[in-house]
């Protein structure tokens, strides 16, 4: 999404308060605030609609799901802006979500996330959407994971 000027000011307003006063080791920045690796997770030409691909990101202990939705999505890449990726750990209590019927569903307490709407929680107990993995596409169609927008469940810091 394109941030309007007004919204940028709002976002920065929030950040200044936290970062100026957070004089300790950590700065409490909005995501992505850390340095993430770029890792190849697929290629636009090999993705089929609604056929998810699993990968690990930003490290071996965190699973991500890459999926081509066949409909435009917030943060989507590719020609149709329909390729998105998210952390697969449910933001409620950490179970692995499933991509099923065009949405993410957690089998533990049935939270459901809308992949086209930044994995917003449209039903259930989780308090935030699944962290969205920022994607980039190279000339040859390779898809790279570049950062995580949101806290991966079970961590106090993504990396």
């Amino acid at each position: 999404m394109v941030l309007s000027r007004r919204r940028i000011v709002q976002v920065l307003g929030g950040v200044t308060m936290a970062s100026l006063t957070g004089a300790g080791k950590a700065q409490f920045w909005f995501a992505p605030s850390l340095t993430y690796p770029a890792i190849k997770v697929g290629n636009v030409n090999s993705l089929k609609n609604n056929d998810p691909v699993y990968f690990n990101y930003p490290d071996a202990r965190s699973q991500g799901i890459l999926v081509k939705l066949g409909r435009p999505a917030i943060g989507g890449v590719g020609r149709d802006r329909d390729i998105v990726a998210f952390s697969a750990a449910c933001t409620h209590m950490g179970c692995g979500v499933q991509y099923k019927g065009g949405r993410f569903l957690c089998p533990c307490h049935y939270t459901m996330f809308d992949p086209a709407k930044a994995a917003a929680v449209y039903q259930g107990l989780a308090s935030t959407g699944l962290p969205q993995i920022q994607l980039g596409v190279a000339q040859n169609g390779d898809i790279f994971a570049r950062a995580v927008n949101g806290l991966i469940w079970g961590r106090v810091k993504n990396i």
Partner: protein
Amino acid sequence: MSNIGRRDALPIPPTNAEVKNTVCQYCTVGCGYKVYTWPVGSQGGLAANQNAFGVDLRNPQNPLGGLVYTETMHSIVTRRDGRQYHVVIVPANDSPINYKRDHSSRGATNAIATWSDARATKERLKYPLLRLGDQFQVITWDEALTILAGVAKGIRDKDGNDDNIAVKAFDHGGSGAGFENNWGVGSLFFKGFSVKHIAIHNRPAYNSEVWGSRERGVHELNYDAIDARVADTIVLWGANPYETASVFYTEHMQPNIQGATLEEKQKNFSKGEPAEAGYLIVIDPRRISSLTIAETIAKERTLHLRPNLGTDYILANAIARVMWERKYYDQKFLQTRTDMAKFEEYKEKSLKAATPYAQFMADVERITGVKRADIEKAADWIAKPKAGGFARRTLTIYEKGIIWNMKNYDQVAAIVQMAVLGNNVGRAGTGCGRLGGHQEGYVRPSSPTPGSIYNGGPPVNVDKYLTDGKGKLYWVIGTNPYLSTPNSQYFRKRIRERTKALSDFLGQAGEPGPTQELVAKILEGLDATGGLFMVVQDLYLTHTAQDAHLVLPASAWGEANQTSVNCNSRLLRLYEKFMDPPGEAKQDWEICKLMGLKMAELYRAEGKEKEAARFEFGKNWRTDEDVFLDGGNSYPNNAIPASEEATLPAECYKGVTYAFLRQVGQQGIRTPVRIENGKPVGTLRRYSVKFGTKDGKFSWYATDDWEGYPAEVAKYLEGDMAQKYPFWMTTGRAQAVWQTMYNDRFLPEKTSLLPMPYVEISPQDAQRLGLKNGDLAQVWNEEGNATFVVMVTDSVSPGLIFTMMFHHLGSANNLTPGYTDPKTTIPWYKGTRVAIRKIRGSLPDLQDTTSFLQQNKFD
């Protein structure tokens, strides 16, 4: 990429962070939480001995049990010392309610809902506001209370009574209320003043929503959460816990339906008694998520009955009739524990034992629209003895679909009678009561208001009293009737008219400057204009407050020590203070105390010592605990044996101190509390020995026959009106938000999910009306209008729509009728007739950013 700011690292509480116990401020479930606060500028480390969690943060947490610390569980607040503090509020790991640190999307935002001038919650009220020159101007507490006491005293001195003083106040637990604030409010209006025209939060009168059960001898909070885990069958009647009591569903009902509680069942059952995975009966006009999740788990163990709106009590009586026919009752229990003389009347009028069974069932099918076979199946699942002749254990839970149904009294009575006929109260795995909405914390001096029609009532409809032009002072505390009262569009217009009449009068030649002259002018204006002087005491400048003359800032959850019980275990705990209120906001009890002292001062100045003394109820209250103990002392003697627990008020906590509550922490104590050997003991489950009546016997009641709909709704079913308003409308809540969204409306995490109130419509009706997901629709009838965003879903059947009850951008109550049950003055919030149309054009931004996926589809 996301439509709200996200985080990818959170601060870690250092080992010297302050740790407090608390309970979620929101729903009835009362999940336990822990609060960590420490000054900004430091943080803890990853190793378990380097942080206040005592948890190794070097490795990711284990799902379902590990530390839960999500992005919404941290914020930074400023205390009165001017310094900034981190606040981390995470689910407790030692709560008997939210096992494994379970929590919902509502409770998870406890931290970001705290007040801060640097975040969206900067909208909190800090100082008293007075409408002067038709604008709010900041004043001091002393000035505010001098004006308010002057006006109140002027009115009561002239009238010689308090009839023209009308009040609408919360009476709940959690949410910054609790025993302390209820005792404060009650003391002011019942000990100081003697206010008859008082109403309870959203309702138009001072009443119970469950007199139909209480007058049978069954208080509505009688079961424990464990009963949901060990019940053979759970009945959810007009209750959708997955969305409104989420953790009660996920930790206590869902495992039972999944068959994950068999061991616990065996432990609680008799020797040789069969135990299997639980059955679920949902009685609701909608395919609610609490049903469809269970269907996903085990379709064959779920049953859905969809009675026509308002006919539930007929259905409950029919299920009971089947139980009677099939002898699913224990004659000995009926004879020893219930009033058999009254039972004959129940049998004749409610069960219609004299009407041949086939004819009776045909009548019921016609009225309720529920098939005889389904009614019989429900009776089997509720009360048919298990193999070996063991009585089935059924927990029946009802909520707004019943209490806010038409004929409130009879609806509630019919359901509890069905439960007691099957001996399903007072044993493990049984119970019949409310799911609850908010937590409870009711302790008040006795009120000058009556009970149900069977106890001197019904109570006065205060909304009607005010809209009819009566009353002079209207004091609204911790509730927003402009959204929440039934028939709110009419109410709002009338109150605005009356408050404005007074404002206009005051403003004619400029408001007088000196306080006493202003008070005199207000009193003069009230008589001259038939206007209303409105005072609103709340956290925010609510919709109602915007029309007030005087606004008093109240403190919220976490800004003081408070106590409440949850509804599913009556678990009393201490909610510890962890931050200061904004500006000069005060606890409700303190505002009431100060108002009392101000009244006393005015009376004493006139030498009226007796009147002055009445208002000094709070002169010894210095701390939250002083108020808690003062309220606790009002309960009857509770040094009585366990077998007598039924004689105690459900929330009795006499003998409990803050020190005791600190010691028991999250384990709390279950009310009613008794004193044994000088120590407080709790009550796990109620009515195992006696019911709460004078003779200890369950008191049967003969419900009314089906008489059709009340005039306020029946008008829509005739002739032209039936064509014009072709839909039934029912209303309810949404998972993500709490009540009127008083906090949520300021949190982008919430408003981005639910930017507008929504309407659910069936695919068939949507197609016919040309409505798609994300369209806007207007819904209207003769009562009012409201605009909703459309969600197409099979949750509702053709001919019925569902609308979100409250949203800060609109309320379904604009359309609800003014009808109240003549026996209780409880409104029918949940049903009326409406028309619906598509609003031309669309809002692409809304459609692009909001999810319209079906909320009840889990397969």
